[in-house]
């Protein structure tokens, strides 16, 4: 068990993070009492801690807590002063921000960026030509400069 702190003083299990790959170092306050614990987790494994740090200021609150020896009393996410809110959002690097590209690996234009101009036809229909010079003149310009610099390859 790597992602909880079981506070023996108040017999509360503090759940730290919903992800098993958590990398984090800092201080967490117990949801059941005023204890503050220092932990250092690498890929969800408790590398250091939990060490009690009496009187120090915590960095964050646990995300959820319960008391298994007390009828599983729950302290739900977002309880003021006890737990932090859980927004069901993964960390920013897992949020899938698309990586925009304008040129392929050999330096020629590819429509890997957004937004693109809307289609010209009825009901979303479009033709078979991407007139980059007309639709994206700034990328066309950049492409011409790449050609001049010799950054456009054949393979």
């Amino acid at each position, binding site marked *: 068990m790597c992602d909880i702190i079981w506070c023996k003083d108040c017999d509360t299990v503090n759940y730290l993070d919903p992800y098993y790959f958590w990398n984090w170092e800092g201080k967490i306050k117990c949801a059941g009492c005023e204890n503050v614990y220092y932990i250092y987790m690498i890929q969800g494994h408790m590398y250091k801690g939990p060490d009690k740090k009496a009187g120090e200021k915590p960095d964050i609150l646990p995300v959820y807590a319960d008391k298994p020896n007390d009828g599983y009393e729950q302290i739900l996410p977002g309880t003021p002063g006890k737990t932090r809110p859980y927004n069901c959002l993964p960390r920013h690097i897992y949020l*899938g*921000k*698309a*990586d925009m590209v304008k*040129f*392929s*690996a*050999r330096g*020629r*234009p*590819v*429509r*890997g*960026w*957004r*937004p*693109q*101009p*809307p*289609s010209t*036809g*009825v*009901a*979303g*229909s*479009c033709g*078979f*030509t*991407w007139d*980059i010079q007309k639709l994206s003149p700034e990328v066309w310009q950049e492409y011409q400069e790449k050609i001049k610099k010799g950054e456009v390859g054949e*393979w």
Partner: protein
Amino acid sequence: MKDQRVTRIEDLPGPKSQGELEEMKMPYEEYCRKVFAPGQEKTKPESLKGIRWLSTTMYIFTPHSVANLAELGAECIKVEMPRMGDPMRHTSPFNECYLYPLHDSRPMTGTGLGFTNANSNEYYISMDYHVPEMKEAFYRLVKLSDGLTECYRPGTFDRWKQSYRYLQELNPRFIYVWGGGFGYGPKVFGGSYDILGQAHAGLASVTGFHEDFGGHCTKHSNWCIDWYSGTQITVAILAALYWRRKTGLGTMIEFSQVQAATRCLGYGVPLYGRFGIVRQRWGNWDTQLCVHGIILCGKSDYPDEPNPQLKYEARYAVVSAFNDPDFKELCAIIGRNDLWDQYKTLQDRVRPQAQIAIYKALEDWAADKTRSQVVKTLTDAGLLAMPVMNDKEVYECEHFRQRGTIRWLDDPVFGDLLIQSGYSCGLMSKTPRRVNWLWRPVGADNVKIYHEMLGYPMSKIEEWYEKNLI
């Protein structure tokens, strides 16, 4: 008197010297280069031109069965849900490899590269075909087409009055394909994914190393059973088209993905039938041949590359030396003649204990060498060895480049794309496969199909579009 048991090279047909080999080989090479001519596919006819196929499919498995037809020249019409398209469009590696645009109504959404290869050369229309208002358009498409591939749960199209039972009354020549997880039977409502196909067919149980060697049953990283099963559907479609030429009648093809994957089990099933033995995994080694497997070498070919796939993973090589002289040579190269003394016959070598000892000796020998050094040493000695190549090396491989296997496509809508697609499927001298475009935006051909082919007025198309029906 000649000893009949001795084979002399003079008695064999074919070249007798290196010079003769070159003399005989070159004209054939030239002939092949001329008739296959990679890059000139579009100057040649298309074998399936005149066939029109509908694709109401999703993901890889069933779409691929239609992409095969489209690459061979059939006119294929992909029917997608309005505004959304095939869910596979929204599946991209690392959520960041998209090509834009997807549709006018969603300017910030693209189509992910996961969609690649399964839908090449097709025309894209959108239609919510289970809405009664669109039934007529759907039926008219059926009347004008040779067949359809669909992938909905069994019986769904029947409920919507567009299964084979209904469509053959409209068009008796219609070939109808249902492709999905299980098909009729006790698991009729079970959906399937590639991984499920590999698992349910028993394929994953014989893939990977045995637990004794720290392995687990394994699925292939890519969706190989999707690609494979889709191609099997295409084979069935081509047979059905031939049957229709003879009888004038269509066919229903019902294609269970888990069933298709059982074919890859090879001798596992008859083995069980004969002895009651369940085949076990044997990882990168071979149960019938030794040495014939993949070994780990100690050093990377790219020690300074930042990409871990190059820095750490480019260390594997295939080694094959299973017949007696080759194995003897291999033992001499790695300085382990004792292995040759111990395992002089193939029967000795394929035993598990022998394989463990032999492959360990090989990897010990390779521990201070790079993959390239291992491959060069062995090939110089006349043994078969080959690096396990990665995508970068496949891209740079001269063999693939000369044969046009991997190439850059100037996609008419999306620009410069590196693809294999249809060019990965062998060469045809008269009617080669080709890739004209990788895909098109959702509904990109609505006007072409609804107006130009079916003759609906533009006002009707605009009305449908307003109502979200297309």
